[in-house]
Protein backbone atom coordinates (compact mmCIF):
# COMPACT_ATOMS: atom_id res chain seq x y z
CA UNK A 1 0.00 0.00 0.00
CA UNK A 2 1.45 3.37 -0.89
CA UNK A 3 0.60 6.25 1.33
CA UNK A 4 0.06 9.84 0.34
CA UNK A 5 3.15 11.95 1.00
CA UNK A 6 3.23 15.58 2.10
CA UNK A 7 5.85 17.73 3.79
CA UNK A 8 5.13 18.46 7.44
CA UNK A 9 5.58 22.18 6.67
CA UNK A 10 2.30 21.92 4.75
CA UNK A 11 0.58 20.98 7.98
CA UNK A 12 2.06 24.09 9.56
CA UNK A 13 0.73 26.25 6.72
CA UNK A 14 -2.77 24.78 6.97
CA UNK A 15 -2.82 25.25 10.73
CA UNK A 16 -1.78 28.89 10.45
CA UNK A 17 -4.61 29.57 8.02
CA UNK A 18 -7.08 27.90 10.38
CA UNK A 19 -5.71 29.80 13.37
CA UNK A 20 -5.97 33.02 11.42
CA UNK A 21 -9.69 32.47 11.11
CA UNK A 22 -10.32 31.39 14.68
CA UNK A 23 -7.91 33.50 16.70
CA UNK A 24 -7.37 37.18 15.85
CA UNK A 25 -4.36 37.30 18.19
CA UNK A 26 -2.32 34.93 16.06
CA UNK A 27 0.45 36.83 14.25
CA UNK A 28 2.91 35.29 11.82
CA UNK A 29 6.46 36.52 11.25
CA UNK A 30 8.97 35.27 8.70
CA UNK A 31 12.55 36.06 7.76
CA UNK A 32 12.48 36.08 3.94
CA UNK A 33 11.51 32.45 3.55
CA UNK A 34 7.73 32.71 3.56
CA UNK A 35 7.20 30.48 0.54
CA UNK A 36 9.47 27.72 1.74
CA UNK A 37 8.07 27.71 5.26
CA UNK A 38 4.43 27.99 4.06
CA UNK A 39 3.85 31.07 6.18
CA UNK A 40 2.89 32.76 2.90
CA UNK A 41 -0.38 30.81 3.03
CA UNK A 42 -1.27 32.84 6.12
CA UNK A 43 0.12 36.01 4.55
CA UNK A 44 -2.20 35.59 1.55
CA UNK A 45 -5.30 35.45 3.78
CA UNK A 46 -4.31 37.72 6.65
CA UNK A 47 -1.81 40.22 5.27
CA UNK A 48 -2.40 42.61 8.17
CA UNK A 49 -1.26 40.02 10.68
CA UNK A 50 1.80 38.90 8.74
CA UNK A 51 5.18 40.60 9.06
CA UNK A 52 8.21 39.86 6.96
CA UNK A 53 11.15 40.96 9.08
CA UNK A 54 13.67 40.39 6.30
CA UNK A 55 16.84 38.37 6.67
CA UNK A 56 17.22 39.14 10.37
CA UNK A 57 16.35 36.19 12.53
CA UNK A 58 17.53 37.81 15.75
CA UNK A 59 15.33 40.84 15.18
CA UNK A 60 12.42 38.54 14.35
CA UNK A 61 12.65 36.76 17.71
CA UNK A 62 12.90 40.04 19.60
CA UNK A 63 9.93 41.42 17.69
CA UNK A 64 7.96 38.28 18.46
CA UNK A 65 8.81 38.73 22.13
CA UNK A 66 7.42 42.27 22.07
CA UNK A 67 4.26 41.12 20.32
CA UNK A 68 3.79 38.48 23.00
CA UNK A 69 4.12 41.17 25.67
CA UNK A 70 1.33 42.99 23.86
CA UNK A 71 -0.97 39.99 24.18
CA UNK A 72 -0.41 38.51 20.73
CA UNK A 73 0.49 34.93 19.86
CA UNK A 74 3.40 35.30 17.44
CA UNK A 75 4.67 32.43 15.28
CA UNK A 76 8.26 33.31 14.34
CA UNK A 77 9.09 31.28 11.28
CA UNK A 78 12.24 30.46 9.32
CA UNK A 79 14.59 27.57 8.68
CA UNK A 80 15.35 25.53 11.79
CA UNK A 81 19.08 25.93 11.36
CA UNK A 82 18.93 29.73 11.42
CA UNK A 83 16.37 30.28 14.15
CA UNK A 84 18.03 27.77 16.47
CA UNK A 85 21.51 28.96 15.56
CA UNK A 86 21.61 32.66 14.82
CA UNK A 87 18.85 33.64 17.21
CA UNK A 88 19.57 31.26 20.08
CA UNK A 89 20.60 33.93 22.58
CA UNK A 90 17.48 35.95 21.82
CA UNK A 91 15.41 32.80 22.27
CA UNK A 92 17.20 32.00 25.51
CA UNK A 93 17.34 35.32 27.24
CA UNK A 94 14.45 37.35 25.88
CA UNK A 95 11.92 34.59 25.24
CA UNK A 96 12.65 31.72 27.63
CA UNK A 97 14.06 33.56 30.63
CA UNK A 98 11.08 35.91 30.51
CA UNK A 99 8.83 32.93 29.71
CA UNK A 100 7.06 34.72 26.89
CA UNK A 101 4.33 33.23 24.76
CA UNK A 102 6.40 32.99 21.57
CA UNK A 103 6.01 30.14 19.09
CA UNK A 104 9.00 29.30 16.95
CA UNK A 105 8.70 27.29 13.76
CA UNK A 106 11.85 25.72 12.35
CA UNK A 107 11.41 24.57 8.77
CA UNK A 108 13.69 22.24 6.80
CA UNK A 109 14.63 20.35 9.95
CA UNK A 110 17.08 17.46 9.87
CA UNK A 111 18.69 16.85 6.50
CA UNK A 112 15.54 17.52 4.50
CA UNK A 113 17.33 20.51 2.92
CA UNK A 114 19.67 17.91 1.38
CA UNK A 115 21.04 19.66 -1.71
CA UNK A 116 21.82 22.88 0.14
CA UNK A 117 24.46 21.06 2.14
CA UNK A 118 25.68 21.26 5.71
CA UNK A 119 24.96 24.96 6.21
CA UNK A 120 21.24 24.39 5.79
CA UNK A 121 20.83 21.01 7.47
CA UNK A 122 19.48 21.41 10.99
CA UNK A 123 21.04 18.68 13.11
CA UNK A 124 21.50 20.53 16.38
CA UNK A 125 18.25 22.50 16.70
CA UNK A 126 16.44 19.99 18.91
CA UNK A 127 19.39 19.74 21.27
CA UNK A 128 19.89 23.48 21.70
CA UNK A 129 16.18 24.19 22.08
CA UNK A 130 15.64 21.31 24.47
CA UNK A 131 18.18 22.57 26.99
CA UNK A 132 16.35 25.87 27.47
CA UNK A 133 14.22 26.16 30.62
CA UNK A 134 10.52 26.86 29.90
CA UNK A 135 10.81 25.66 26.30
CA UNK A 136 8.49 23.05 24.80
CA UNK A 137 9.90 21.14 21.80
CA UNK A 138 7.69 19.33 19.30
CA UNK A 139 8.60 17.29 16.20
CA UNK A 140 5.48 16.30 14.29
CA UNK A 141 5.72 13.01 12.40
CA UNK A 142 3.54 13.86 9.40
CA UNK A 143 1.52 16.69 7.88
CA UNK A 144 -1.63 15.81 9.82
CA UNK A 145 0.17 15.77 13.15
CA UNK A 146 1.99 18.95 12.17
CA UNK A 147 -1.30 20.75 11.83
CA UNK A 148 -2.55 19.50 15.19
CA UNK A 149 0.73 20.35 16.89
CA UNK A 150 0.66 23.92 15.57
CA UNK A 151 -2.88 24.45 16.79
CA UNK A 152 -2.00 22.94 20.17
CA UNK A 153 1.03 25.23 20.40
CA UNK A 154 -1.19 28.25 19.91
CA UNK A 155 -3.40 27.10 22.78
CA UNK A 156 -0.64 26.44 25.28
CA UNK A 157 1.01 29.27 27.21
CA UNK A 158 4.78 29.80 26.93
CA UNK A 159 7.64 29.31 24.49
CA UNK A 160 7.35 26.45 22.03
CA UNK A 161 9.63 25.21 19.27
CA UNK A 162 8.12 23.24 16.39
CA UNK A 163 10.30 21.45 13.87
CA UNK A 164 9.08 20.77 10.34
CA UNK A 165 10.60 19.08 7.30
CA UNK A 166 11.06 20.17 3.72
CA UNK A 167 10.59 16.82 2.01
CA UNK A 168 7.28 15.11 1.39
CA UNK A 169 7.01 12.15 3.76
CA UNK A 170 4.27 9.53 4.27
CA UNK A 171 1.05 10.69 5.89
CA UNK A 172 0.25 7.80 8.20
CA UNK A 173 -1.72 9.29 11.09
CA UNK A 174 -5.43 10.04 11.03
CA UNK A 175 -7.33 13.27 11.50
CA UNK A 176 -9.14 11.57 14.37
CA UNK A 177 -6.02 10.56 16.33
CA UNK A 178 -5.71 12.45 19.59
CA UNK A 179 -2.72 14.76 19.85
CA UNK A 180 -1.75 16.14 23.22
CA UNK A 181 1.48 18.02 23.90
CA UNK A 182 3.70 15.92 26.17
CA UNK A 183 1.72 12.72 25.68
CA UNK A 184 3.57 10.12 23.60
CA UNK A 185 1.66 7.83 21.26
CA UNK A 186 2.28 4.08 21.19
CA UNK A 187 2.05 3.34 17.47
CA UNK A 188 2.70 -0.39 17.83
CA UNK A 189 2.61 -2.53 20.97
CA UNK A 190 5.61 -4.74 21.64
CA UNK A 191 7.45 -6.63 24.36
CA UNK A 192 11.07 -7.28 23.28
CA UNK A 193 12.33 -3.80 22.58
CA UNK A 194 11.00 -0.25 22.18
CA UNK A 195 11.90 2.11 19.35
CA UNK A 196 11.37 5.72 20.35
CA UNK A 197 11.26 8.16 17.45
CA UNK A 198 10.02 11.64 16.59
CA UNK A 199 9.32 13.47 13.37
CA UNK A 200 9.10 11.73 9.98
CA UNK A 201 11.46 9.00 11.22
CA UNK A 202 8.50 7.55 13.15
CA UNK A 203 7.36 6.11 9.84
CA UNK A 204 10.76 4.54 9.29
CA UNK A 205 10.49 3.09 12.81
CA UNK A 206 7.20 1.46 11.85
CA UNK A 207 8.91 -0.13 8.86
CA UNK A 208 11.57 -1.43 11.23
CA UNK A 209 8.81 -2.84 13.42
CA UNK A 210 7.49 -4.86 10.49
CA UNK A 211 10.94 -6.18 9.57
CA UNK A 212 11.56 -7.19 13.16
CA UNK A 213 8.15 -8.87 13.37
CA UNK A 214 9.13 -11.04 10.38
CA UNK A 215 12.04 -12.27 12.47
CA UNK A 216 9.85 -12.93 15.46
CA UNK A 217 10.92 -9.84 17.40
CA UNK A 218 8.17 -7.82 19.04
CA UNK A 219 9.05 -4.14 18.91
CA UNK A 220 7.04 -1.40 20.54
CA UNK A 221 7.09 1.86 18.57
CA UNK A 222 6.60 5.14 20.38
CA UNK A 223 5.94 8.43 18.62
CA UNK A 224 7.60 10.87 21.01
CA UNK A 225 6.39 13.96 19.18
CA UNK A 226 7.04 16.10 22.23
CA UNK A 227 10.74 15.83 22.99
CA UNK A 228 10.29 18.27 25.85
CA UNK A 229 8.59 17.85 28.24
CA UNK A 230 9.42 14.17 27.75
CA UNK A 231 6.61 11.72 28.43
CA UNK A 232 8.43 10.01 31.27
CA UNK A 233 5.53 7.69 32.01
CA UNK A 234 5.70 6.23 28.53
CA UNK A 235 9.48 5.90 28.64
CA UNK A 236 9.43 4.26 32.05
CA UNK A 237 6.74 1.79 30.98
CA UNK A 238 8.73 0.93 27.85
CA UNK A 239 11.88 0.36 29.86
CA UNK A 240 10.12 -1.81 32.41
CA UNK A 241 8.02 -3.79 29.96
CA UNK A 242 10.46 -4.29 27.09
CA UNK A 243 13.79 -3.89 28.87
CA UNK A 244 15.64 -2.37 25.92
CA UNK A 245 15.35 0.92 24.05
CA UNK A 246 16.36 2.19 20.64
CA UNK A 247 16.15 5.93 20.04
CA UNK A 248 16.32 7.51 16.62
CA UNK A 249 17.19 11.12 15.90
CA UNK A 250 17.34 12.98 12.60
CA UNK A 251 19.99 15.01 14.39
CA UNK A 252 23.37 14.80 16.06
CA UNK A 253 23.47 11.97 18.56
CA UNK A 254 24.50 14.40 21.27
CA UNK A 255 21.66 16.10 23.02
CA UNK A 256 18.65 15.08 20.98
CA UNK A 257 15.71 12.81 21.70
CA UNK A 258 18.11 9.95 22.45
CA UNK A 259 19.86 12.13 24.97
CA UNK A 260 16.58 13.07 26.62
CA UNK A 261 15.52 9.43 26.94
CA UNK A 262 18.94 8.35 28.22
CA UNK A 263 19.10 11.18 30.76
CA UNK A 264 15.80 10.10 32.19
CA UNK A 265 16.46 6.36 32.19
CA UNK A 266 19.91 6.52 33.70
CA UNK A 267 18.53 7.87 36.96
CA UNK A 268 15.13 6.16 36.98
CA UNK A 269 15.35 2.74 35.40
CA UNK A 270 18.61 1.97 33.60
CA UNK A 271 18.19 -0.45 30.72
CA UNK A 272 20.35 -0.87 27.60
CA UNK A 273 19.82 1.95 25.10
CA UNK A 274 21.08 2.15 21.53
CA UNK A 275 20.96 5.58 19.96
CA UNK A 276 20.70 5.97 16.21
CA UNK A 277 21.56 9.38 14.80
CA UNK A 278 24.29 11.46 13.21
CA UNK A 279 27.66 10.64 14.70
CA UNK A 280 29.26 13.97 15.51
CA UNK A 281 29.84 15.08 11.94
CA UNK A 282 28.63 17.68 9.47
CA UNK A 283 26.91 16.09 6.51
CA UNK A 284 27.23 17.03 2.85
CA UNK A 285 24.90 17.81 0.01
CA UNK A 286 22.87 15.04 -1.55
CA UNK A 287 19.27 13.94 -1.86
CA UNK A 288 17.67 13.38 1.56
CA UNK A 289 17.19 9.67 0.83
CA UNK A 290 20.83 9.33 -0.23
CA UNK A 291 21.89 10.99 3.01
CA UNK A 292 19.57 8.82 5.10
CA UNK A 293 21.13 5.71 3.59
CA UNK A 294 24.73 6.90 3.76
CA UNK A 295 24.44 8.15 7.33
CA UNK A 296 22.47 5.10 8.49
CA UNK A 297 19.07 6.47 9.38
CA UNK A 298 16.77 4.04 7.61
CA UNK A 299 14.68 1.13 8.89
CA UNK A 300 17.42 -1.49 8.48
CA UNK A 301 19.67 0.56 10.74
CA UNK A 302 16.96 0.63 13.39
CA UNK A 303 16.59 -3.12 13.03
CA UNK A 304 20.31 -3.60 13.57
CA UNK A 305 20.21 -1.35 16.63
CA UNK A 306 17.22 -3.27 18.00
CA UNK A 307 19.04 -6.58 17.70
CA UNK A 308 22.12 -5.12 19.28
CA UNK A 309 20.24 -3.70 22.25
CA UNK A 310 18.30 -6.92 22.77
CA UNK A 311 21.60 -8.82 22.87
CA UNK A 312 22.90 -6.41 25.50
CA UNK A 313 19.78 -6.98 27.57
CA UNK A 314 20.50 -10.73 27.77
CA UNK A 315 23.74 -10.19 29.67
Amino acid sequence: MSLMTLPTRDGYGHALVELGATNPDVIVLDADLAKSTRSDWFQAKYPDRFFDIGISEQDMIGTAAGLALGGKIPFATTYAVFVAGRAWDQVRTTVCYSNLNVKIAGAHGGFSAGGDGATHQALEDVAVMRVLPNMTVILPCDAIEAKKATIAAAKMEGPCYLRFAREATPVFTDEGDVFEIGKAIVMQPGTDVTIIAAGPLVYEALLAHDKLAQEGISARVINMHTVKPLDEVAVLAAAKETGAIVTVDEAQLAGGLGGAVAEFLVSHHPVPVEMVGIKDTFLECGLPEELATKYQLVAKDFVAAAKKVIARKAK
Partner: protein
Amino acid sequence: MESVERLKGICQDVRADIVRMTNAANSGHPGGSLSAVEAMVALYGNVMNHRPADPNWPERDRFFLSKGHACPVTYAVMARTGYFPVEELVTLRKLGTRLQGHPSCKALPGIEVSSGSLGQGLSVANGFALSAKLNRKPYRAYCLLGDGELQEGQIWEAMMTAAHYKLDNVCAIVDYNGLQIDGDVEKVMGIAPLADKWRSFNWHVIECDGHDIAQMLAAYEEAKQTKDKPSVILMKTVKGKGVSFMENVAGWHGKPCNKDEMKQALDEIYGKGNGQ
Protein backbone atom coordinates in the same frame (compact mmCIF):
# COMPACT_ATOMS: atom_id res chain seq x y z
CA MET B 1 46.01 41.12 -17.26
CA GLU B 2 43.15 40.25 -19.57
CA SER B 3 41.59 42.75 -21.96
CA VAL B 4 38.08 43.97 -21.26
CA GLU B 5 36.95 42.15 -24.39
CA ARG B 6 38.48 38.89 -23.18
CA LEU B 7 36.84 39.31 -19.76
CA LYS B 8 33.49 39.85 -21.46
CA GLY B 9 33.96 36.55 -23.26
CA ILE B 10 34.65 34.79 -19.96
CA CYS B 11 31.48 36.36 -18.57
CA GLN B 12 29.49 34.65 -21.33
CA ASP B 13 30.99 31.28 -20.49
CA VAL B 14 30.43 31.78 -16.78
CA ARG B 15 26.77 32.66 -17.37
CA ALA B 16 26.36 29.51 -19.45
CA ASP B 17 28.10 27.48 -16.74
CA ILE B 18 25.71 28.81 -14.09
CA VAL B 19 22.69 27.85 -16.18
CA ARG B 20 24.09 24.40 -17.01
CA MET B 21 25.28 23.45 -13.54
CA THR B 22 22.07 24.42 -11.76
CA ASN B 23 20.10 22.57 -14.43
CA ALA B 24 22.25 19.48 -13.90
CA ALA B 25 21.76 19.71 -10.13
CA ASN B 26 18.05 20.43 -10.55
CA SER B 27 18.48 22.94 -7.73
CA GLY B 28 20.72 25.83 -6.75
CA HIS B 29 20.65 29.58 -7.13
CA PRO B 30 20.96 31.06 -10.62
CA GLY B 31 19.49 34.56 -10.01
CA GLY B 32 22.02 35.97 -7.57
CA SER B 33 24.83 34.15 -9.36
CA LEU B 34 24.07 35.78 -12.70
CA SER B 35 23.95 39.24 -11.14
CA ALA B 36 27.51 38.91 -9.82
CA VAL B 37 29.21 37.60 -12.97
CA GLU B 38 31.05 40.76 -14.03
CA ALA B 39 32.12 41.54 -10.47
CA MET B 40 33.57 38.07 -10.05
CA VAL B 41 35.18 37.80 -13.48
CA ALA B 42 36.83 41.21 -13.08
CA LEU B 43 38.02 40.29 -9.60
CA TYR B 44 39.46 36.87 -10.44
CA GLY B 45 40.59 37.89 -13.93
CA ASN B 46 42.42 41.17 -13.32
CA VAL B 47 42.21 42.38 -9.75
CA MET B 48 43.12 39.73 -7.21
CA ASN B 49 46.67 38.65 -6.68
CA HIS B 50 46.25 34.86 -6.66
CA ARG B 51 47.59 31.63 -8.17
CA PRO B 52 44.84 29.26 -9.26
CA ALA B 53 47.33 26.39 -9.58
CA ASP B 54 48.46 27.02 -6.01
CA PRO B 55 45.29 27.91 -4.14
CA ASN B 56 47.01 27.91 -0.76
CA TRP B 57 49.75 30.36 -1.78
CA PRO B 58 50.13 32.35 1.45
CA GLU B 59 50.58 35.76 -0.22
CA ARG B 60 47.26 35.64 -2.09
CA ASP B 61 44.45 38.14 -1.75
CA ARG B 62 41.40 36.51 -0.19
CA PHE B 63 37.86 36.40 -1.49
CA PHE B 64 35.00 35.77 0.92
CA LEU B 65 31.61 34.84 -0.51
CA SER B 66 29.32 36.03 2.24
CA LYS B 67 26.22 35.35 0.16
CA GLY B 68 27.13 31.67 -0.05
CA HIS B 69 24.11 30.66 -2.11
CA ALA B 70 25.75 32.38 -5.10
CA CYS B 71 28.50 29.74 -5.19
CA PRO B 72 27.66 28.70 -8.77
CA VAL B 73 29.23 31.95 -9.98
CA THR B 74 32.26 31.43 -7.74
CA TYR B 75 32.71 27.83 -8.89
CA ALA B 76 32.35 28.80 -12.55
CA VAL B 77 34.81 31.68 -12.27
CA MET B 78 37.25 29.46 -10.38
CA ALA B 79 37.00 26.80 -13.08
CA ARG B 80 37.38 29.36 -15.87
CA THR B 81 40.48 30.84 -14.22
CA GLY B 82 42.15 27.47 -13.75
CA TYR B 83 41.38 26.26 -10.23
CA PHE B 84 39.82 23.01 -11.44
CA PRO B 85 38.48 21.49 -14.67
CA VAL B 86 35.37 23.07 -16.16
CA GLU B 87 33.92 19.56 -16.55
CA GLU B 88 33.64 19.27 -12.78
CA LEU B 89 31.02 22.05 -12.65
CA VAL B 90 28.13 19.70 -13.40
CA THR B 91 28.82 17.77 -10.18
CA LEU B 92 27.28 20.69 -8.25
CA ARG B 93 25.18 19.47 -5.32
CA LYS B 94 25.65 15.77 -6.12
CA LEU B 95 26.54 13.33 -3.34
CA GLY B 96 30.32 13.28 -2.92
CA THR B 97 31.04 16.48 -4.87
CA ARG B 98 33.60 19.13 -3.99
CA LEU B 99 31.06 21.69 -5.20
CA GLN B 100 28.77 21.71 -2.19
CA GLY B 101 25.38 23.42 -2.37
CA HIS B 102 26.89 26.17 -0.25
CA PRO B 103 30.66 26.50 -0.40
CA SER B 104 32.78 24.37 1.90
CA CYS B 105 36.44 25.17 2.49
CA LYS B 106 36.93 21.59 3.64
CA ALA B 107 35.71 20.29 0.30
CA LEU B 108 37.29 22.66 -2.22
CA PRO B 109 40.72 24.34 -2.15
CA GLY B 110 40.37 28.02 -2.99
CA ILE B 111 37.28 28.51 -0.84
CA GLU B 112 38.61 30.47 2.13
CA VAL B 113 35.83 29.83 4.61
CA SER B 114 32.58 27.90 4.48
CA SER B 115 29.47 30.04 4.10
CA GLY B 116 25.76 29.88 3.42
CA SER B 117 24.32 31.30 6.60
CA LEU B 118 23.97 34.92 5.54
CA GLY B 119 25.54 37.86 7.30
CA GLN B 120 28.80 36.34 8.46
CA GLY B 121 31.34 37.04 5.72
CA LEU B 122 32.29 40.66 6.32
CA SER B 123 33.41 39.96 9.88
CA VAL B 124 35.71 37.24 8.58
CA ALA B 125 37.11 39.55 5.89
CA ASN B 126 37.80 42.11 8.63
CA GLY B 127 39.61 39.59 10.77
CA PHE B 128 41.73 38.48 7.86
CA ALA B 129 42.50 42.12 6.98
CA LEU B 130 43.53 42.73 10.58
CA SER B 131 45.89 39.77 10.38
CA ALA B 132 47.39 41.26 7.20
CA LYS B 133 48.07 44.51 9.09
CA LEU B 134 49.61 42.62 12.00
CA ASN B 135 51.74 40.53 9.62
CA ARG B 136 52.68 43.64 7.59
CA LYS B 137 51.48 41.95 4.44
CA PRO B 138 50.03 43.69 1.41
CA TYR B 139 47.28 41.17 0.70
CA ARG B 140 43.69 42.35 0.62
CA ALA B 141 40.30 40.95 1.60
CA TYR B 142 37.34 41.05 -0.78
CA CYS B 143 33.83 40.22 0.36
CA LEU B 144 30.70 39.82 -1.77
CA LEU B 145 27.43 40.61 0.01
CA GLY B 146 23.79 40.45 -1.08
CA ASP B 147 21.55 43.49 -0.66
CA GLY B 148 18.97 41.40 1.19
CA GLU B 149 21.80 40.00 3.25
CA LEU B 150 22.49 43.51 4.55
CA GLN B 151 19.40 43.08 6.73
CA GLU B 152 21.46 40.86 9.02
CA GLY B 153 22.62 42.85 12.04
CA GLN B 154 26.08 41.31 12.02
CA ILE B 155 26.86 43.13 8.76
CA TRP B 156 26.37 46.48 10.50
CA GLU B 157 28.50 45.38 13.40
CA ALA B 158 31.22 44.44 10.93
CA MET B 159 30.83 47.78 9.16
CA MET B 160 31.70 49.51 12.42
CA THR B 161 34.66 47.22 13.04
CA ALA B 162 36.20 47.78 9.60
CA ALA B 163 35.93 51.55 9.86
CA HIS B 164 37.03 51.64 13.49
CA TYR B 165 40.25 49.79 12.71
CA LYS B 166 40.73 51.71 9.44
CA LEU B 167 40.86 48.51 7.42
CA ASP B 168 41.69 50.01 4.02
CA ASN B 169 42.64 46.51 2.88
CA VAL B 170 38.98 45.49 3.01
CA CYS B 171 36.84 45.87 -0.08
CA ALA B 172 33.17 44.94 0.28
CA ILE B 173 31.05 44.49 -2.81
CA VAL B 174 27.27 44.73 -2.54
CA ASP B 175 25.27 42.99 -5.25
CA TYR B 176 22.55 45.65 -5.34
CA ASN B 177 20.03 43.73 -7.45
CA GLY B 178 17.00 44.91 -5.47
CA LEU B 179 15.58 41.43 -4.89
CA GLN B 180 15.61 38.83 -2.16
CA ILE B 181 13.54 35.64 -1.84
CA ASP B 182 10.23 37.13 -0.73
CA GLY B 183 10.36 39.93 -3.33
CA ASP B 184 11.67 43.50 -3.63
CA VAL B 185 14.18 44.36 -0.95
CA GLU B 186 12.49 47.71 -0.41
CA LYS B 187 9.14 46.01 0.15
CA VAL B 188 10.37 43.17 2.36
CA MET B 189 12.64 45.28 4.59
CA GLY B 190 13.94 48.51 3.13
CA ILE B 191 17.67 49.25 3.19
CA ALA B 192 17.67 52.62 1.38
CA PRO B 193 19.37 55.09 1.37
CA LEU B 194 22.19 52.63 1.15
CA ALA B 195 25.14 54.82 0.10
CA ASP B 196 24.34 57.30 2.88
CA LYS B 197 24.26 54.49 5.43
CA TRP B 198 27.67 53.12 4.47
CA ARG B 199 29.09 56.68 4.36
CA SER B 200 27.75 57.47 7.79
CA PHE B 201 29.50 54.32 9.00
CA ASN B 202 32.76 55.91 7.75
CA TRP B 203 33.24 53.80 4.64
CA HIS B 204 34.48 55.02 1.28
CA VAL B 205 31.55 54.40 -1.07
CA ILE B 206 31.93 53.66 -4.78
CA GLU B 207 28.76 53.37 -6.85
CA CYS B 208 28.83 51.77 -10.28
CA ASP B 209 27.12 49.59 -12.87
CA GLY B 210 27.85 46.02 -11.86
CA HIS B 211 27.48 44.72 -15.39
CA ASP B 212 30.08 47.08 -16.89
CA ILE B 213 33.48 45.40 -16.69
CA ALA B 214 35.42 48.64 -17.18
CA GLN B 215 33.48 50.32 -14.37
CA MET B 216 34.07 47.35 -12.10
CA LEU B 217 37.81 47.39 -12.79
CA ALA B 218 37.91 51.11 -12.07
CA ALA B 219 35.95 50.60 -8.85
CA TYR B 220 38.35 47.94 -7.59
CA GLU B 221 41.26 50.23 -8.42
CA GLU B 222 39.68 53.15 -6.57
CA ALA B 223 39.17 50.91 -3.55
CA LYS B 224 42.81 49.86 -3.68
CA GLN B 225 43.95 53.49 -3.77
CA THR B 226 41.74 54.56 -0.87
CA LYS B 227 43.73 54.82 2.35
CA ASP B 228 42.69 54.77 6.03
CA LYS B 229 39.13 53.65 5.27
CA PRO B 230 37.49 50.47 4.10
CA SER B 231 35.80 50.71 0.71
CA VAL B 232 32.47 49.37 -0.46
CA ILE B 233 31.43 48.99 -4.07
CA LEU B 234 27.67 49.37 -4.32
CA MET B 235 27.17 47.86 -7.73
CA LYS B 236 23.79 48.25 -9.39
CA THR B 237 22.89 44.88 -10.89
CA VAL B 238 20.03 42.92 -12.39
CA LYS B 239 19.16 39.64 -10.72
CA GLY B 240 19.20 36.91 -13.38
CA LYS B 241 21.18 39.16 -15.74
CA GLY B 242 21.67 37.80 -19.24
CA VAL B 243 18.64 35.50 -19.37
CA SER B 244 15.58 37.55 -20.32
CA PHE B 245 12.98 35.52 -18.44
CA MET B 246 15.06 35.46 -15.26
CA GLU B 247 15.89 39.14 -15.17
CA ASN B 248 14.35 40.97 -12.21
CA VAL B 249 12.14 38.02 -11.25
CA ALA B 250 12.45 36.97 -7.60
CA GLY B 251 11.14 33.50 -8.43
CA TRP B 252 14.46 32.65 -10.13
CA HIS B 253 16.38 33.12 -6.89
CA GLY B 254 16.57 29.41 -6.17
CA LYS B 255 15.07 27.72 -9.20
CA PRO B 256 17.04 26.10 -12.04
CA CYS B 257 16.10 26.07 -15.72
CA ASN B 258 14.47 23.01 -17.17
CA LYS B 259 15.77 21.67 -20.49
CA ASP B 260 13.80 23.99 -22.78
CA GLU B 261 14.47 27.02 -20.65
CA MET B 262 18.15 26.14 -20.63
CA LYS B 263 18.26 26.05 -24.42
CA GLN B 264 16.69 29.49 -24.64
CA ALA B 265 19.00 30.80 -21.92
CA LEU B 266 22.12 29.55 -23.71
CA ASP B 267 20.87 31.00 -27.00
CA GLU B 268 20.47 34.37 -25.34
CA ILE B 269 23.83 34.23 -23.59
CA TYR B 270 25.80 33.35 -26.72
CA GLY B 271 23.59 35.07 -29.26
CA LYS B 272 20.95 33.02 -31.03
CA GLY B 273 21.96 29.81 -32.72
CA ASN B 274 25.30 29.38 -30.99
CA GLY B 275 24.05 27.67 -27.83
CA GLN B 276 25.32 24.13 -27.45
